[in-house]
């Protein structure tokens, strides 16, 4: 178990820890740091975090699985998160989803064999005014149409 | 108590004519039936029956669609029993003739399966409640068979393997959900 924060992260962690009166309250930022550091939070990382904070292992797991922005499994280079909530669906998110599936030949939750794209559907991203919307890693693309999606995917390649 | 006797008429009290009348009826039957028996021997008038007898093991009366015969267990496409060993038939059986021992199935989607499924036909009263209770359409009484005699009580306890081999009598299927065989319409467990 060679999982350990780098010196830099350790310092950051110390800062974070200082913000909370109780140690286990720092679980969320600690996991955030871990994700930054290791990109994927594997069970080993969880154990490390749990030990670091003195929190039961299962609590770490609970928090990790509750929040969707933590990733417990490895993703492709681009994480396509398509909103399929009401507003987006009404404005054609289903068509776009079908288009992406068709284009990349993957289903929701899967990664392309070249490890480039991971497709997932998410709930409201808060862009109902400019629906449909897709989040690619940290960027948002609004007012999508199948054509725009094609362009987008082409650009990302 | 009042006894009402019927007075015989003079003709009746002679007996002779009454006896002759009776003899005439029986003799008429005899002659008619003999005629057709002999005609049948020569292949004539086959459609006119000479006797009402049904020669049971060789001939059988076609049973009604609703008739309940021996039990059988429906199987999945892979041949394993549809039964999930829920024991509802065992529960509903008024004479307690069904004995199931349940076991863990390796497939978590099936989970429970009958390790043994015995129907004791010596106790069975053919009420068909097991058919109705079964939530997965596993047990049926549509084989159109009656239990065959056995040399011991054990011979009359039908086991799972035996019950699985039975097939429904064509045209006498008693499927409860849809007419005819075919997939079940309402199967809560998706099995």
């Amino acid at each position, binding site marked *: 178990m060679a999982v350990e924060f780098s010196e830099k992260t350790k310092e950051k962690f110390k800062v974070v820890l200082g913000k909370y009166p109780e140690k286990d309250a720092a679980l969320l930022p600690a996991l955030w740091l871990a994700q930054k550091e290791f990109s994927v939070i594997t*069970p080993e990382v*969880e154990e490390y975090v749990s030990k670091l904070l003195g929190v*039961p*292992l*299962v*609590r770490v*797991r*609970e928090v990790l*699985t*509750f929040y969707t922005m933590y990733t417990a499994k490895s993703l492709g280079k681009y994480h396509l998160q398509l909103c399929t909530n009401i507003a987006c669906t009404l404005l054609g998110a289903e068509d776009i989803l079908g288009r992406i599936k068709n284009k990349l030949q993957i289903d929701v939750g899967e990664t392309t064999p070249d490890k480039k794209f991971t497709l997932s559907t998410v709930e409201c991203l808060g862009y109902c005014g400019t629906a449909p919307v897709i989040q690619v890693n940290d960027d948002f693309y609004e007012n999508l149409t199948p054509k725009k999606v094609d362009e987008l995917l082409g650009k990302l390649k | 108590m009042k006894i009402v006797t019927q007075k015989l008429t003079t003709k009746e009290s002679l007996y002779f004519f009454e006896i002759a009348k009776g003899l005439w009826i029986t003799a008429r039957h005899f002659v008619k039936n003999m005629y057709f028996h002999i005609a049948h021997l020569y292949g004539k008038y086959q459609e006119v029956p000479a006797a009402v007898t049904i020669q049971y093991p060789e001939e059988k009366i076609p049973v009604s669609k609703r008739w309940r015969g021996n039990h059988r267990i429906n199987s999945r496409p892979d041949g394993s029993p549809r039964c*999930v*060993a*829920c*024991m*509802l038939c*065992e*529960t509903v059986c008024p004479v*307690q003739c069904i*004995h199931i021992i*349940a*076991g*863990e199935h390796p497939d*978590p*989607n099936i*989970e*429970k399966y009958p390790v043994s499924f015995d129907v004791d036909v010596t106790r069975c009263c053919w009420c068909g409640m097991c058919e109705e209770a079964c*939530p*997965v359409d596993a047990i049926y009484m549509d084989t159109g068979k009656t239990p065959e005699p056995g040399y011991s009580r054990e011979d009359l306890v039908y086991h799972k393997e035996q019950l699985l081999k039975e097939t429904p009598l064509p045209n006498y299927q008693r499927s409860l959900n849809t007419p005819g065989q075919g997939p079940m319409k309402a199967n*809560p*467990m998706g099995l």
Partner: protein
Amino acid sequence: MPTVTIDERQVTVDPGTSILEAAKKLGIFIPHYCYHPRLTIVDACRMCLVEVKGAPKLVTSCSNAVADNMVVFTDTPKVEEARQSVLEFLLINHPLDCPICDKSGECLLQNYYFCHSRKPSRFKENKVKKHKVVDLGPKIVLDSERCIVCTRCVRFCKEVAGEEILGIFNRADHSEIGVFPGKKLENNYQGNLADVCPVGALTARDFRFKCRSWFLCQIDTICPGCSNGCNAVVHFTLRNFNGLKGQRVFRLTPRENNDVNKVWLCDVGRWGYAFVDSIDRLTMPAMRKGEDFVKTDWNTALKETANRLKTLVERYGANAIGVIPSPHLTNEDLYALKCLFGCLLKIANIDFKVPGFDKGEDDKILLKADRHPNTKGAELLGLSGTGLSVEAMMDKVKAGEIKALYLAGSDPVKYMGEKAEEALSRAELVIFQGTNFNASCKLAHIVLPGATFVEKEGTFTNYQGRVQKVNKALEPLGEAMADWEIFTRLGQMLGVFPSYRSAEEVFMDIAREVAPFAGITYKKIGSQGIKLTLPEGPVLSEAKE
């Protein structure tokens, strides 16, 4: 002391009492899933909603404390509608596999559905598929699809068993109970998870698929697993198609007793019933013929026993016989034994303290080191210290001074090993009276089958000195007989002996003759037991609470 009106009836309760508890006091039952009287309150299930006058919305009765002059309604149309809606939500992703679910028949989802909803599902979309048959450990199986995420199990592990191992993973309708990958439930109280779970999500592997709950009868009993004397309910069936071969007792579940076990039962006791229907049960009296045992009937076996004991007493005196009773026997059994051997035959060598009998593991929650349910009872009845100790008896047997040993349920070979084995094989006469075949029984000359705790009536005295009653659920297997009955029949063959017809008669004699039991009757013991006023002495030090 707030006074509340619930469904137009008034009740005064302690401050801080929840509405649900207050209603329970009035005999009004409010349906609930996540609430458990011994666990913290999370109000997660929303099933216990009630209408409070003045409140804008329905409130959860489990988490809201009563206030003075509060007016509560538990069965208004509004409440019923809320319950129906909650049930509809809970059942949205439920797999409805009641036919194969072990919980069906005692499942709160089923019960409340039939009491409060009875509405067909309106959910037309695909149900969320979750993991089935999840291995949580060697004793418990989880079915996530059936789970309603009430978190009773999570709280139980954390708060009672002291092992924070269960958690809820994922969120919304994908929530599942689970353990961290690679971990397993290990605590000694996981059996309670199956009881605590209101639905069929957590089931005990031991009970899994064995029997449907509606085939089971229940009767109050005391767990015979250790000297704690946890109150339990034994579930057994009278539908036994395989005669002597089938399983009759299927499980033990805890019964509430605040002074003893709260509402929990440890796994050791819970799954310790297996000996009742195990294949090594003694079902017929037997006598040794060379190497083998020959089955015989009670009359022959008892006559033989009586004759040989009588001859030995006449020839060598009463001290040539040693009696080793077991604290597994009930007070009644032990008293009858004392009457027979102590008073009638004047045997002084009676000792139940087989060396090492109380050296089990103590887990500081319920399980005690002494794994015998009636040690205190045996002590109070004076079955130790009148003559030689067990160890000394074994030595004397070897020396040839003690000719016969009467083992009443005890298994000295198990605790003393070779020493006892040697002694037993040297003794002129070894009589074994017990329920199961064991190493000591193997060396006996006469074997008398006794009844187990579910097959006889009687009382156990736990380590605190609390007398508690076990009830007869089943007829003894085969020809087996309650131990007090064996002693009574044997006593009548040997001389003047009271003709007990029931365990209660024996207990009446105990109450008359043994000081600590004075004035106690079966009626007074009731379902919760009765604590004895113990005499001064070393025994009290153990019993500090």
